[in-house]
Structures are given as C-alpha cells and as structure tokens.
C-alpha cells in the first residue's frame, strides 16, 4: 500500500510544547532589543556584492561555424545567437536530468511493486515518458552539433537550471517519500519544462531556425502529455490518500 498521511508526534510547531513555547516567545520579546524588521542593511550589503559580481559563466565558442549556425548567423543579423545556444544547452541539461528523475521515480515504484505486488503508478507509462525525455535530450544534442556547438559543455542557463533542479531530484530519491510526493516533484519539473519548450520554440522562430522550431514543437506536444499524465496520477494519489484508498493504478 502507498504510505498514507497520518497524524503523529510531529514536534515542529509551538503547539507541541506550550510551556516552553510561552517562555520562548516572552523571552524573545523581552530580551531582543529591537522589534521592527529592518531589511535595509541586508539589502545594502547584497547591493555591494551585486555590484562586484561576475557572471555564472559564458556560452562556449562554437568549435566550427557549421551549416546551420552559418545559415542562422545570416538570418540572425543584429541578433544574439549565443542566447539561443544558451537556452538549447539548458534544455539539453534539463532533459538529461529529467531522464534521471524519472529513473529515480521508476526505481521507487519498482521497489514498492516488489513489496506490494503492484506498482502504484503504471511503470510502462513512466518508462515511456523517461524514453521521450531521452529522445528530447538527443534531439537537442543533434541540433547543437549541427550548429557546431559543443553539446557536452554546460551553458550558463544549463548550470542555473541544474541549481533549480537540486531540490526536485532529492524528492523521489528519498526512500521515505510517498508516491504522491514524488509525483509532485515530477509535476513541478514538467510544468517548468513545458514553459521552457514554448519559449525555446519562440526563440528559434525569432532566430529564423524554422526547421528546428518544428522539431521542438513535436517535443512540446509530448511534454504536454507528460504534464497531463503526471498531474492526473498526482491528483489521484492525493485524493486516494484523502479517502484512505489504495494509490492510483492508472
């Protein structure tokens, strides 16, 4: 059975220790000399750091100006092709991470299936999504290679999206998390992924890369299905928990 939400000895709130909490609150009020929150000093300090900050890094220089990029350069006169390469690098990294995210969720479902004889989410569908994420990674790799860009390099936005994803990947990886909690992490990733594909399509079109935009549209259609499926499983898991029924099967 999927782990259900239960009441227990949660000690985090002040309600669990009313006497100590009262002492803590009155102590803070009496013994803290200031009472009005003041974010000014923090802001000024951050400002100094921002003023002196470098950047996350750069977009690598393409090894060769291959056909697609050459063509694009022509069309992109007055535009910034690095912006497109940066975003393609980001999508590539995100999709590659997405494969691992789904693999993590699949491992958890398989472990639960071996315990209860039944996977809480259809494994074949999860594996199908995982395979499509891998396809998208390869699509981006090919597009970047065609442009003469290095698909093994980390672009600045790829790096930042990796930072964002750190928390997401921790959720299915934790043996204690429920399927519902894992699905929520997948949903967060998929929603961001959908928006990012939409943006990448617009960006490619703006840069005159119409063939590429067509490929990306196909990927977006698949991603839209991912969101729909994951959202459905997630909602079923939460509803099942609320009614104490078994977890969703389909």
């Amino acid at each position, binding site marked *: 059975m999927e782990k259900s939400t239960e009441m227990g000895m949660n000690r985090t709130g002040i309600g669990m220790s009313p006497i*100590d909490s009262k002492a*803590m609150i009155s102590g803070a009020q009496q013994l803290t000399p200031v009472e009005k929150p003041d974010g000014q000093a*923090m802001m000024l300090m951050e400002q100094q750091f921002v003023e002196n900050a470098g950047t996350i890094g750069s977009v690598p220089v393409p090894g060769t100006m291959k056909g697609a990029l050459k063509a694009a350069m022509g069309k992109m006169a007055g535009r910034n092709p690095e912006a497109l390469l940066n975003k393609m690098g980001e999508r590539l990294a995100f999709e590659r991470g997405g494969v691992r995210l789904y693999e993590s969720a699949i491992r958890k479902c398989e472990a639960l299936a071996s315990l209860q004889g039944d996977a809480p989410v259809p494994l074949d569908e999860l594996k199908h999504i995982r395979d499509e994420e891998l396809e998208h990674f390869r699509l981006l790799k090919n597009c970047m290679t065609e442009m003469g860009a290095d698909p093994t390099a980390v672009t600045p936005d790829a790096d930042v999206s990796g930072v964002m994803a750190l928390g997401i990947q921790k959720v299915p990886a934790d043996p204690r998390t429920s399927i519902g909690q894992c699905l929520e992490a997948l949903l967060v990733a998929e929603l961001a992924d959908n928006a990012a594909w939409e943006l990448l399509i617009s960006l490619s079109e703006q840069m005159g890369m119409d063939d590429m935009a067509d490929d990306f549209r196909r990927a977006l259609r698949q991603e839209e299905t991912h969101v729909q499926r994951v959202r459905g499983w997630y909602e079923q898991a939460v509803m099942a928990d609320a009614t104490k029924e078994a977890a969703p099967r389909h």
Partner: protein
Amino acid sequence: MAVNLFDTQGTPLAKQKFTLKELSPPPISKLDDDAFTRVRIILMNGIEQQANRFQHLCAQMNGALREPLARIRRVEHHQQTMVNWLLSGDHSPIETTIAYEQVAIEVTAAIAQQEPDEYLAQVYRYGLLEDFDHMYRYSALLDRVEGKDANNILQSYTDVIPGRPTSDEHRHPHDDLRDHYDRATAQPISKLNALTIMSGEYQTRDYYMNIGPTFSDPVARNLYAEIASIEEQHVTQYGSIIDPNETMLEKWMLYEANEAYNYYSCMEAESNPQVKAIWERFLDYELGHLAVVMDLFKQHERRDPAEILPQTLPDPIAYESQREFVRDTLKREINLRAAGTDFVEKGQENPESLKYREYMNSEGSPSDAISAGYLWQPGTELNTDAIRAA
C-alpha cells in the same frame, strides 16, 4: 547504571565490524524525532571526528603506535559515518546549522554547570554566550533567506535572542588563549569536559567551512565566513585549556574514555529506540578501544591507567533545555570580554583585539546586516499576528 572502566572490556576490537549497508542507517525524522536526538547525533559526530583527527596526528608523530592507531581509527571512522548518516536529507544546510548551534548552546551550558573548576566553567560560559548569539543570527538568516522558522528545529528548547554580538566577538589570537588545566591536579571530569566541547566546536568550524561556499546568497556566504572565523577562535580557546604536557598515550586514553562517557550520556537520555541501540553498541566499542589503549599505556609508559582515569564514568551529561541557566548567564556576563587568559569587563580589552575587530568589521558586518531589527516569533517574522494568537 554506573560504568566501571576497569572491570569492563567492552566489545573486543576484532569483533567491531560494519557492513556498508550499516554505515547508512535509516535516518531520524526531522519532524517527529525529539530535537535532543539530533543534538546527540551532531555532538557524537563531532566527538568521533575529533578522535579520528587526533589519532591521525598521533600516527604521524609516533611510529610505535601506528598499527594500533590504524586499527582503532578505522572503527572510529565507521562509527562517525553511521552516526552522521542518521541525519535525514530533508535538513537544509541552514537548518542543520541551527541544530549545530543548539548543540553548542545546550551541551556547553550543561557542561558549564557540571564543571568543578570555576575558571574552566567561566571559559564555557564565555563561549556559550557567543554561540548563543550565532543562533540568533542564523535564525534570522533561515527566516529571511529560506522563509523558515528556526524553532521547527529547536522545538522550543532553546531561545532565539541576541547574546554577545557576533560582530564584537572578533579578537586577536592572543586573547583567545586560556590557562590550561593541570594534568596532575585536574579532576578527570574536567579533562573529559574539555575534550567534549573542543570536539563539538571543531566540527562546527569544519561544517561551516565546508557548507559556507555552497550558498549563493552573498550575505549567507559572508555570514558563514564570519561565524567560521569565530568558531576557529573557539577551537583555539577550548584547545588551549587542555594541558599540553600530557603524554600522547595519556591523551589517547582520555579521548577513548571521553567517547565512552559521551555514548553513555547519550544512551541514558535517548528517546528513539533505534538510535539508543547505536549508542549502546558504540559505548561497548569505545570500552573495547579503551581496554586496548590502557594496555598500550601500561606497556609503553609503565604507569597505571588509574592515575589518569576515574574508576567509573561520571554522571551523564544532562540533555535538557538549559534556558534558565543561559538567560542567567546572559544577564550576568554579556558584557564580559577576554584579555589574554583573563575575563574582563567591556572597555578593558587589549588594544590588539580592538584593532583586529575594527579592521574585520571595516567593510561591513554580515551578522549585523542579516539580523537588523530581527525579532524571532513562531512561524517566522512574517507571521506578525503570531504572538497575539499565542
């Protein structure tokens, strides 16, 4: 249960084994386990880390002891792993930091009260008020950067109130040295207390040094750099109260006895049965280590370990909220400062420390910046009607 150090052999070293799976036990619950379970886990990680560090240094300075040191040290390493891996992955680094400062406050306060030497007790109270202030600054950081309440970790055992201001804690190294206890006349508990607190502070320094650069927020990075500097001062302070004239084997024996003492204290207080079983097991492991080191002591120094060690382990460290003691200390000693090995009133500090501090703070103070106008209240400072509701 009194533990007799001379009648108990503990688990023989040859039987102290781990599988890799054992090194990664099921972690505690951040939400449901008692905060003092986490306090004990963090402290014991520090105790084991320091034992490991001490034994490595010994091996580099004593060829004859290399082999037994290597054998015991391997077990200490695995004990540290198993203990530290009890922390669950849902603790953010700042939340773990809050827990580290809770260790520093609650354990130092307990030790200060059980310390029979008044000068050493004063040293502990002095450091206590500085760690107490770190709690306030880090709570502001947790609230203002992650939007979280430090009390979710503290569980109302430990106050979040300013202590001796962190920006005032920067001192010249000369003013961090203290008089050491006398190995010949100090009571065994004084020697164990010093090792416990020094170990705890050393791991805190190392923890901040490791996680500080993992933050992206510039004020957080700067705050960790600042408080790591103070923890380095604390390691200097607590390291300096240990008699440097003790022999290497004398020290090693005390380290092993202290590990046993700390596991015993944890075992007596533990509420989580899975964790308690680990404390029990490791108490027996440490008694096994102590038996080996006592034999080495007899063999190499031709002395009786009873000259150094007590017959039985002292009363366990009290794992309970020290709120009243801390507040009382705050009231009496917040204006105390250090001058050389002495404690003096504010205004009587050495010029070297004043210059050092002025320079350190001359481009801004992250501890002051992060906590400007900060008042802890349940549910974070954004929960403005919390106090009325309570």
